[in-house]
């Protein structure tokens, strides 16, 4: 590892700490495991001598791989990406109010691919093509996961609102 690798990684970490954590929790659904995954990913990244020019998606991919490794080991998954103290009034919309637990429950009902795509699109502001590149899958597949996930969420929300 050389010093420029460390500097670049530090810059990505500082800039994307929250995003990486949200993304990792959305995969592991366990906060401790998400932190372990981020830590492991950075330990591995710091051993590299060179890094790709477009580093941010690469770091996300490494964190994803580490999170998936963890997912294979641990079975019980309960944590959500939202704060625990998120009260229902904070989620007020024109049509109703939603608590963190409800939002988390709805996200849990999506497939892992749908959930991951929606989290990346919503919180990391990645385009569908960027997500496809990061995941190494065709763009239309990601678009399909995204559309299906949003449709499921809309149905769940509509059912909740009544």
């Amino acid at each position, binding site marked *: *590892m050389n010093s420029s690798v*460390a500097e670049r990684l530090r810059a990505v970490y500082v800039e994307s700490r929250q995003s990486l954590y949200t993304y990792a929790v959305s995969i592991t659904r366990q906060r401790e495991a*998400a932190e372990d995954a*981020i830590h492991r990913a950075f330990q591995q990244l710091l051993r590299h001598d060179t890094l790709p020019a477009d580093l941010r998606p690469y770091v996300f991919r490494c964190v994803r791989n580490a999170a998936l490794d963890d997912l294979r080991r641990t079975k019980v998954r309960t*944590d959500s990406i939202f704060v625990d103290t*998120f009260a229902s009034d904070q989620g007020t919309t*024109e049509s109703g109010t939603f608590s963190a637990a409800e939002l988390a429950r709805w996200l849990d009902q999506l497939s892992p691919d749908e959930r991951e795509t929606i989290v990346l699109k919503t919180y990391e502001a990645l385009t569908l093509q960027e997500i496809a590149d990061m995941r190494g899958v065709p763009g239309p597949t990601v678009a399909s996961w995204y559309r299906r996930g949003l449709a499921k969420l809309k149905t769940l*929300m509509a059912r909740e609102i009544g």
Partner: protein
Amino acid sequence: MNDPEDILRGAPLAAPSSALEQRIQSAFAEAAQARRKASPPPIWRWVGGCAAAGIAAAVVLVVTRTGTSRPSGDTKPASIQCEIGAPEPLRALLLESPAHERTPPRFFVTVSTP
């Protein structure tokens, strides 16, 4: 605001713990320490090493040269002088007599003894 994305975006997210921050900082520190250990010696060490090797080689050469035995006394080889001459005038012999009458000119060589 019925869009699920807007609803999700409006919800506050859980933040990473300070423990993660500390773990990442230690990972960076460990990597920096490993880098320092593995890094090649600075350039002045290479220069110093080369200079020391050069000086050692020069000393060995000087010692070897002074240690070899030489013949005692004057080491300059004795000079030998050679003198080549003719007892009769060469011009008259070579140019002023017809070729068929010509007898090979006589020369003498004198070599000094050291």
